[in-house]
């Protein structure tokens, strides 16, 4: 009788259950890791630098902040970022807008967002809002992580001076000062990018030995206090849309080694995005007006950059193995974008300038939606290494380039 009653109840419940289905969510767990105090160390992408500037809404969707939100499900704690006070940062922000070009055509282009930088963005905010968990510093090189803020020649460390604990502290010291239990480290991109962006400054790309020394030093320091973390490899910067947007066909460039001091660019070489207006409006790139060296990457430099990135990434992988850390292959992720569409949630990502959904309008840093992809890559790597189950984020919930 009881069995019959149960059957009737079961059937009735199905028949009358209405139309609101539910589904049991899976249970996130931390596995073998302690995510209670997470610290992120890195460069521009870690800081949330995007569209050529560091500004508040860009920082809020930085990949470390996305990760930190997901870590809340597995015991993660507060994650403080050194937020700028406004949407203008230091005044270098780019937006898309219509402008009249040199031919009086109305074209869609990246233009300055305008406005004046708020002076409060230049003040140190550590006392009021610190300590900070996101220690990403725009354009920081690997040597800058261990350098004291007042001892570096890198002008971009002015970003760090905003939120450094003291004028004599370093990024690594500030990171360790908050007693982190888990870290992410994605550094080295600027070591390759800055010499490519500013060839006129004749910056030397650091050697494999130097990179190994700095990287090992950082890992060793972290490892003294924090045993768990993720390191990320460095992308091939020559795949960034800043270097791939302008086609190289029939472009003349100056080259001291070439006959007559000029030559045509080869298809394997790269033009910088900064050459676009010159080519379009000033007949630059013609045989008569070849482009100067500061507007292109010759094959020799590209080869050197690619050799270095492989060497650096080999070091990163070896140290991850040696110090038993999780490891995420950003090189492969970014490379796959360069070769074909990378599809998530029905959206195709590639390295096409503006329309590829991945790179922001500076052509170098990431859109919020790309930050979500990067964050998920970190999360997958952590889950794999530490047998945790940190939930990933829905990529489509983030935005891409904003059109006028």
């Amino acid at each position: 009788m009881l069995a019959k009653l149960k059957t009737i109840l079961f059937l009735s419940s199905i028949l009358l259950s209405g139309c609101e289905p539910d589904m049991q969510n899976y249970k996130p767990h931390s596995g073998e890791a302690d995510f209670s105090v997470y610290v992120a160390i890195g460069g521009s992408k870690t800081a949330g630098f995007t569209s050529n500037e560091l500004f508040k809404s860009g920082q809020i969707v930085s990949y470390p902040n996305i990760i930190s939100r997901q870590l809340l499900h597995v015991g993660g704690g507060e994650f403080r970022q050194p937020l700028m006070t406004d949407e203008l940062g230091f005044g270098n922000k780019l937006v898309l807008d219509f402008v009249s070009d040199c031919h009086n055509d109305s074209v869609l282009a990246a233009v300055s967002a305008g406005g004046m930088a708020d002076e409060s963005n230049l003040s140190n905010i550590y006392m009021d809002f610190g300590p900070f968990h996101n220690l990403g510093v725009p354009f920081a090189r690997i040597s800058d992580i261990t350098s004291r803020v007042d001892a570096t020649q890198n002008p971009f460390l002015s970003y760090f001076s905003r939120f450094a604990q003291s004028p004599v502290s370093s990024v690594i010291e500030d990171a360790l000062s908050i007693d982190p239990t888990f870290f992410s480290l994605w550094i080295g991109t600027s070591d390759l990018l800055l010499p490519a962006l500013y060839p006129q400054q004749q910056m030397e790309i650091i050697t494999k030995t130097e990179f190994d020394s700095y990287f090992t030093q950082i890992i060793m320091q972290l490892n003294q206090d924090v045993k768990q973390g993720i390191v990320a490899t460095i992308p091939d910067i020559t795949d960034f849309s800043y270097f791939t947007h302008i086609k190289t066909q029939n472009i003349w460039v100056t080259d001291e080694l070439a006959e007559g001091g000029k030559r045509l660019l080869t298809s394997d070489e790269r033009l910088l995005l900064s050459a676009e207006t010159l080519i379009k409006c000033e007949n630059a790139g013609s045989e008569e007006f070849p482009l100067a060296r500061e507007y292109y990457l010759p094959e020799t430099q590209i080869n050197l950059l690619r050799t270095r990135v492989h060497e650096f990434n080999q070091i990163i992988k070896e140290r991850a193995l040696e110090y038993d850390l999780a490891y995420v292959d950003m090189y492969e992720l970014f490379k796959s974008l360069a070769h074909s569409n990378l599809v998530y949630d029905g959206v195709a990502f590639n390295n096409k300038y503006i329309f590829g959904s991945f790179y922001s309008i500076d052509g170098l840093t990431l859109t919020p939606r790309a930050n979500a992809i990067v964050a998920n890559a970190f999360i997958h790597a952590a889950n794999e290494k530490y047998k945790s189950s940190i939930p990933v984020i829905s990529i489509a919930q983030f935005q891409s380039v904003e059109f006028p």
Partner: protein
Amino acid sequence: MRYLQLLLPLLLFSIHTLTTLAIPFPNMDKSTNGTIYNISELKPDASVVWTNPAAMNNTDSVFNIALSLNAVIRNSIFQASEPSLYQAISDNPVLYPFQLNVSSKINSSLSLGLTVQPYNSEQFSWQEENWTGRFLIRDYNLNAMVIQPAISYRLSESVSVGAGLVITGYQLRFNRSLPLRDINNEARQTINGKSIKLGLNLGISAILNQYLNISLNYKSGQLIKFNDSEVSNSFPGSLQYAGSETTSANIEWVLPENINFSATYQINEKWVTNANLAWFFYLNENKVDVKFPAISDFMSNFSIIGSNEPEIVYQLGVSFFASDYFTFRAGSWYSQGNTDENFLFPVLVNGPRIGLYGDTSFMAYPGLSINISIASAYFFKKSGTYSPGNFGGSYKTLAFSPGLGINYSF
């Protein structure tokens, strides 16, 4: 025999009640000898408007007319693939389909019938603004207007054959988001297509003895082509130069071939039981191809490929003739589903499911009856990925449909 006269129109009503809900419907009593009821999945094809046309000869009434109206309520939940906590619930409009069926005996061997279904619709909608699958689909609506003239011929005392010509007009609207936005809005794309298709509905039924009847029915599938469909794109202002008039879409929407086998057994004067076995198979894939013009360098062409697995639906039912005035029916069905786990597009996912139904007929006046029905379907959790879009997760659906019908026969 009075039961038999009464039941055909009632069943015609019930067919609609349940098929509109995407629920298999039983061949539930003796009056439906040879009738294989639709057990399709809310597909506005031949299977929803008529049963085995051979069955028209299995009633003693000279004339039948049935009108039915239903409410169809259906919702699905989506859970993104682990490890993710993302969930969304579809917000499908309530449908109110209706159907008219008329059949008449010309002589002892020949019957003619007509079914008109002016509004049959399959709708699915994800309304949440940031629904994570919106770049694949936000909502779609496939409306069908179906007219089916049918003929049935009695070959012998125990065997009848029948044929129906299914004329269907289709109207498809498909809406999704595009990964472009301005400060206020995300770009949208809407595709509208129209098509008319013909289909066949063929059947045979046999009375083996006074207790047992069997039947076989074939319904043709349809490859509905919406060629050069109108595509309207609402781009951010700066991208409107791409225009919508030069964007076109070709859509191929596939409805399955269907073969049904049915048996009905009369246990005694009060009880009749029945069983159905239905096989669905697909000869083509679903395709939606949107091609952007060359100037739209910011948008790549968009394609959906849909693949369906063959499907078998099993059904058992029973009817109880309580009195001259009341008849009760109940039953259930099960299907393993037809979805390909690598092409799990975020619309109604026909995974494994079980359904229950019940209905009651009341004869208010000789020949005139009123029918009330209720049905519910439970779609078990189905996990998979739409591989071309790298979009994965699990889906569950609940469906519910009350129905009301009026029938007259003499």
